[in-house]
């Protein structure tokens, strides 16, 4: 069988056309697939007020940001699971995290966490995202509007969750 025999002798021009069509089809396919997957897998940023207004489905991956309420942190007996309340705009979300507690994760400071709500509406955090320096949450945050605070929290997130 000769090279030209396979497809009844594609001319070089036609072969190029076939290759272009294949490449374009693959890229369009990849793009569509990416878009569909993004719809399901991207995790949206919520603050306590958003959860109150429009709660995500339990089990849906989300990113929660807000302030750790004063006096809400409770270490469980196992010494590695901590319960706390994320607050903002007068709304509160009960949250729980199991893992090594970052230094900067303290009451009265900002927190951003990846996780999901469970059936009871408790936020189960997989990772706490803390910015790696002492200026994590400026004091000025106290007087910020929720929009400014949202931006501040988002911008101070480290990409690598720890």
């Amino acid at each position, binding site marked *: *069988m000769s090279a030209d025999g396979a497809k009844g002798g594609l001319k070089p021009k036609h072969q190029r056309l076939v290759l272009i069509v294949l490449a374009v089809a693959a890229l369009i396919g990849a793009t569509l697939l990416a878009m569909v997957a993004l719809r399901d897998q991207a995790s949206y940023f919520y603050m306590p007020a958003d959860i109150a207004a429009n709660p995500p489905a339990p089990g849906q991956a989300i990113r929660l940001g807000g302030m750790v309420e004063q006096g809400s942190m409770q270490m469980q007996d196992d010494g*590695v699971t901590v319960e706390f309340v994320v607050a903002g705009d007068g709304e509160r979300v009960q949250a729980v995290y199991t893992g*090594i*507690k970052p230094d900067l994760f303290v009451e009265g400071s900002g927190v951003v966490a990846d996780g999901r709500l469970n059936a009871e509406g408790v936020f189960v955090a997989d990772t706490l995202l803390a910015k790696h320096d002492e200026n994590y949450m400026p004091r000025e945050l106290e007087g910020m509007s929720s929009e400014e605070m949202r931006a501040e929290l988002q911008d101070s997130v480290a*990409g690598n969750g720890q």
Partner: protein
Amino acid sequence: MIPEIGLAALWLAAALAALQLLAGLAGARTDNAEIAALARPAAALQAFLCAIAFGSLLYVFAVTDLSVKLVATNSHSMKPMIFKLSGAWGNHEGSMLLWITVMAIAGGAIALIERRLPEKTMMATLAAQAFVGLGFYAFLLLSSNPFERLAETPPEGNGLNPLLQDVGLAFHPPTLYIGYVGLSIAFSFALAALLTRNVTPEFARVMRPWVLAAWIFLTIGITAGSYWAYYELGWGGWWFWDPVENASLMPWLAATALLHSASVLAARDALRTWTIMLGVIAFSMSMVGTFLVRSGILTSVHAFAVDPERGSFILALLVLYIGGALVLFALRANTIAEGERFSPLSREGALVVNNIGLTAILGVVLIGTLYPLFTEAFDVRVSVGPPYFNPVSAIFFLPMMLVLMVGPLLRWRNDNAGRIAKPLALVGAVMVTVLIRSLFYDDIGLLPFLGLVLAAGVAVASFAPLFGRTLRRTPLAIWGMCIAHFGIAVAMFGMAADTAFQKERLVAANIGDMVEVGPWTGQLETVNAVAGPNWTAMQANLTMFYEGGEGQEAHPQSRNFWTPTMETSEVALLTRWNGQLYVAVGNQGEDGRWQLRLWWKPFVTFIWYGGLLIALGGGLALIGRVAGDLRRRRQQASGEEVDGESHEEALA
């Protein structure tokens, strides 16, 4: 004085780049040999001046000259010398100076070394390289001057982000940048080929070693970066699909595709337009990655926030260069004649599948990385992580692995399936064995399971091209290909094994408590304070036993740096041939117990061994090709009969 010398050298280098652009264009478009003769020396001198500028920056960091703003904001007199030096590129201005220095050296190297291309194409290449360089000189000199002085010298500097104070990371950016910016050569070659309408197998052979060299550095850089994230961040993972990681992965995917399509062009004179396109895309991805990281537009642990003015500057450069290159491509692509024909079942056919797969993964990663930017325009904030990237890239990656087993065995142009049945039967047998073995572990996820099976298949198939050859006479390029493909299998095995069989334990332990994870048992013996040059730490001391064997000590630390103030986790790693025990220590709870996190990660080290094997394979291929070129050049010089590239080498 030294900073001013560095700055003057940069301005001079920029002026030379302008000269090189004009001389190169004149050389490409006219027959004016006198003007054209200026292009090569301009490129060489530019490289020398950039080296002086970069040397000046290293010097001011080495002596901690706090009158220089960059030193005051990013260094500290108390730092160990190695981190003073690496601090020079651990910031925005310094890393951009490194970028332009690598670019100038690359341009100088082509100008001095490359003699095989038609002179006009060569001149156009130098012009293109200068054109790209000028944009980055402008960026550096107008908005990111690394040598800026302070009006008043502060008593002490701000220090360097402690996460960056790590030997592995000290050499990570230079390696990555050599890879990133080395691809600018492919970009310039591609533009020159379009300008002079000269796309030939010879052109691919000239471009290939340069791409290969850049790709090797990129491979090492990504591997090292992954290992750094693994042991420095203390979270136990090795790839987070962080925007910064993606920024280095995207050029690698494009460069890998480019290497493979260039070999089709070199050996068979097919895929001409496609190769040029990839040459443009590869460096475009370097620039996009740099934009994402350097503009601070995607916040991430290594992307230091930068003012938006700079981001806009880089964005303008992106639009200019990528847009311009694509417009030129669109205008000229039709004028490139079609290449040779081949049937779908042939080496070319397999390489086309490889290229389409790599490009699709590139698209998937690019879309996922940019998606948060896109939604933010509509004021919706999202983050995209492994749940998106893992399955979507695997959909394209896993079928590519099947083609990888077959492709290298196929003949160029046309083949029949019967001829490769025997080696494939062997590969199939290995895969079935692994399949059956894996079924005994019922809790493996689908992706790790497929990864294990395909890794086994690729590992065997990767050496199949060596069967029936006289090994001593096999060209290095073939060895390189086999080793690199084997490296893919090794890395894939490491990833799959770690994902499937990892054991994790999180405990709060008192001194004297027993801890266990997977096959390891041990005891938290003591916790004590230790101090380093610019940090103090609490160090946990454990003795761990693997399946009751010899005891090994682990000393994880929780470190506090004071310049700047920050807490980092220094994990302890106990390495065995079949995996690593990974131990991190957290804080002491109010009840006096220490938080410990232990992972047993079977075969995790194979991930980085694989990465190094891939780079080694590339290195062997590069040596083989360069040696072949040198031999032919020597024969030419001495007037001997020149052996054409042997059939073996040409088709490797």
